[in-house]
C-alpha cells in the first residue's frame, strides 16, 4: 500500500475496511484466539477448564497413538473422497459445459445436480441405510436374484458406506467451481486446438484441464475442509466403528475436556491450513480468478 499523504484522505479507506474487519474480529479472530488460549489451560476431571499455562494437552495428544490413528483415518477418507469427487465433478462439469449445446438445458441439468440439497444433510445421509443395509434394497435384490446367498455386510457400517455418503454429500462442491472455471474457457481455444491437430484427449489434457485448475483447486479446498472437519457422517455411516480427527475432539467434549479439545482443534486447524496453503501454491487462485 502506498504511504498515506494525510490522515484525512485515509479515513474513507478505513471506513471501507471497517465492516469486514469488525466481522472478522468478532467471528473469527476472537473465537480462534480463545480456542488457542483454552488449549493451554488445565483440565479438571468433569469440571472443565482451569486457567493455567500447560503444554500437557499438546503433549498428551501428540504422544497418544489414538490421535495418530484418528488422523490417519481422516486423511485416508480425505484422499479417497477427493479423488472420487474430482473424477465425478470434472466429468459432470465437462459434460454440462462442452456437450450440452443449449444453455438453458445446461442450467436445467445443473439445477438437477442441486436437487439432493433441497433436503437436509441428515436425511440425505440416513436415506442410504435402507439402501445399503442387510435387509436393504441392494442386498434384497441380490438375494432374490440368486447372485448371493448371504447379505453383503460391508455395504453398511463400514468405510465403504462412509465414502458413499461423503461422495454423495460433497460432489456438488467440486462440480460448481469446476463448472464455473470451464464456462469461462473460450470455445474458440478448443476449436483452435482441434484445427492444430489435437486429439479429443489432447484437448482435455492440454487445454481444458489447465484452464480449469482454479475450479479444481477451489473444489478440492471445499472437499478437504468438509471431510477433515466432519465427525457426524463418519460416526453415523460407520455405525460408530470408525472415527475422525473431529470425532476425537467430540469425544473430549463429552467429558468436558475443553482444553484438550481446543488443543486438538488447533492441531487440526494447522493441518488444514497447511493443506490449503499447498493447494494455493499449486494454483494461484487470485490471479486466475481475475483472469
Amino acid at each position: 500500500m502506498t504511504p498515506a499523504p494525510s490522515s484525512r484522505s485515509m479515513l474513507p479507506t478505513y471506513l471501507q475496511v471497517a465492516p469486514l474487519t469488525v466481522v472478522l474480529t468478532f467471528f473469527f479472530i476472537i473465537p480462534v484466539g480463545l480456542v488457542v488460549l483454552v488449549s493451554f489451560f488445565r483440565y479438571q476431571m468433569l469440571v472443565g477448564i482451569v486457567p493455567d499455562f500447560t503444554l500437557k494437552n499438546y503433549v498428551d495428544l501428540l504422544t497418544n497413538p489414538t490421535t495418530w490413528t484418528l488422523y490417519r483415518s481422516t486423511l485416508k477418507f480425505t484422499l479417497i473422497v477427493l479423488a472420487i469427487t474430482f473424477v465425478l465433478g470434472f466429468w459432470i462439469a465437462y459434460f454440462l459445459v462442452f456437450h450440452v449445446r443449449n444453455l438453458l438445458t445446461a442450467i436445467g441439468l445443473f439445477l438437477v445436480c442441486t436437487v439432493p440439497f433441497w433436503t437436509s444433510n441428515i436425511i440425505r445421509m440416513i436415506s442410504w441405510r435402507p439402501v445399503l443395509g442387510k435387509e436393504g434394497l441392494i442386498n434384497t435384490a441380490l438375494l432374490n436374484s440368486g447372485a448371493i446367498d448371504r447379505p453383503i455386510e460391508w455395504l453398511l457400517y463400514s468405510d465403504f458406506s462412509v465414502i458413499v455418503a461423503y461422495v454423495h454429500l460433497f460432489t456438488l462442491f467440486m462440480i460448481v467451481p469446476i463448472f464455473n472455471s470451464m464456462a469461462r474457457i473460450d470455445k474458440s481455444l478448443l476449436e483452435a486446438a482441434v484445427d492444430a491437430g489435437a486429439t479429443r484427449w489432447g484437448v482435455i489434457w492440454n487445454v481444458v484441464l489447465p484452464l480449469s485448475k482454479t475450479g479444481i483447486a477451489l473444489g478440492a479446498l471445499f472437499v478437504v475442509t468438509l471431510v477433515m472437519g466432519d465427525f457426524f457422517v463418519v460416526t453415523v455411516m460407520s455405525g460408530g466403528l470408525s472415527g475422525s480427527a473431529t470425532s476425537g475432539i467430540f469425544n473430549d467434549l463429552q467429558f468436558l475436556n475443553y482444553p484438550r479439545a481446543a488443543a486438538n482443534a488447533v492441531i487440526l486447524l494447522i493441518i488444514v491450513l497447511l493443506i490449503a496453503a499447498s493447494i494455493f501454491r499449486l494454483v494461484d487462485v487470485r490471479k486466475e480468478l481475475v483472469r
Partner: protein
Amino acid sequence: MKKTGGLLNGMVTRRSVLKGGAAVAGVTAVTGFPTVWAQNLKDVTLMHTGMSYSTLPDIARQATEDLGFKVEMSVVDHPGLLNRLVQDPKSLDIADLEIWQSKVAVPQGALQGIEIAKIKNWGELTPLYTEGTFGGKEASRQGDSPFEYIYREGMDTNGFASGVTEWANFCPGVYNADTLGIRPDLVGREISSWADLISADFKGKTAIQNIPTNGIMDAMMACEAAGLLTYVDKGNPTQDELTATIAKLIELKKDGHFRALWSTFDESVNLMASGEVVIQSMWSPAVTSVKAQGVKCVYQPLKEGYRGWGNGLGMLAHLEGLKRDAAYEYLNWYNSGWVGGFIAKQGYYSSNPASAMAALSENERGFFYEGKAATADITSPTGEKTNSAGEVRDGGSYEERFSKVAVWNNLPDEAEFLYAKWNEFNAA
C-alpha cells in the same frame, strides 16, 4: 423472601397434597394442585432439563395444566447436562440427573438441598432411594446406588451424607433395571446370560452402547459372565480391570464382532428394527419403540441380574422465593401419579409406585407392575400397540425385576482413565 416463603408454606400444609392425591383413583389421579396461591405464580416458568428418555414434553404439558404455572422441557445429552450444570446453571431450574451425575453436580455447588419435609409424599417413595433397600432386603451397592447419594447434611452443604437426613440432593425420579434387547425371531437360540453379548454365535450381529460409563458396564457384565475376567467391584473398576476389558472389546471390534456402536436412542431402535443386530445393549423405551413398529423385540432378563439406574430431580442453587416454591410444587406433583402412569407405558418405573399404579388401568397395572398377563392390548404412551392380550412383561413383576439388580450405573473413580481407554476402543 423469607416472609413470602413462610406464608406460602403455611398454605401448603393446610391443603394436604397427599389426601388429594390418594383420594382419587383412576387415570386423572392428580388433584389438589396448585397449592401455592400467588397472583404472580402464573408468570413463573420452570425449566426442566434432562436427557431425552425422561425429559418429555407431555409431562411439561400436563404439569403446566395441573399446576397453573409453566413448566418447560429442554433436552440435552449426558455431557450436555453436566456442562450446563457447571458452566451455565442459571439456564435451568430443575435438573433431571442420573445418580452418577450428582457426583459432579453436588460438589460443584450446582444444586441446593431439598427440604424433605416439603415433599409431602416422601414417605411413599420407593425405599430403593430413601432407605437403600428393596422388598425388605438391602439393595445392591455395586456402583452408584441412589441411596448413597440422595442425602446431604443441610441446605448449603454441597456433599453427600452417609445416612438418612432431613435434606436431599435430589427428589427421586424415574428409574429402571436395564438388560439386553434381543430379536427373538432372529437369535435362533435361548438367551440367558450377559455372556451372549460377546458370544461368537452373534458375530457381526451385536451392538454395544457408545456411552463409556454405561457401555463399560455392559462389557464387564458380559466378560464376567463369559468367565473371561473377574472384577472385585464392577461398580468401581480398577485401571487393570478397565485395561483388560477394553482390550477384549478392541479384540472383538477388530474381529468384526460389533455391527455398530450406538450413541443415541433412535440408533438403537433402527439397528434392532432393521435386523442389523439381533442382540445389543438397549434401553427399555427403545424396546417399546421397536415393538410399536410391529417388530418382535424382547427385553431379555438374564441370570446375572440387571444393570440398574435411577434419575433424580435436583433443584438448582439459584432458585429462591416464588420460583423455589413452584419447584417444590413441581417435585410434589412429579411423584403424585400422572407421570408414573405415563412413563410406565414406556417401560420405566415411578418412585411412587402406589400413585403410579393408581394412575394406570387395571390391565396396565397388572401388566407393568404386577407381572400379570395382559387382559387386553397394551399400548405405548403415543397409542401404538406394543403387547397383545395374554402376554406377560419381560422380567416379570416390579418386585421380581428390582430384586435382581446386580450393579448400578456409575461414575467410577477411574473415570478419566476409562474415557481415555474408551477413546482407544472408538478409534481402534
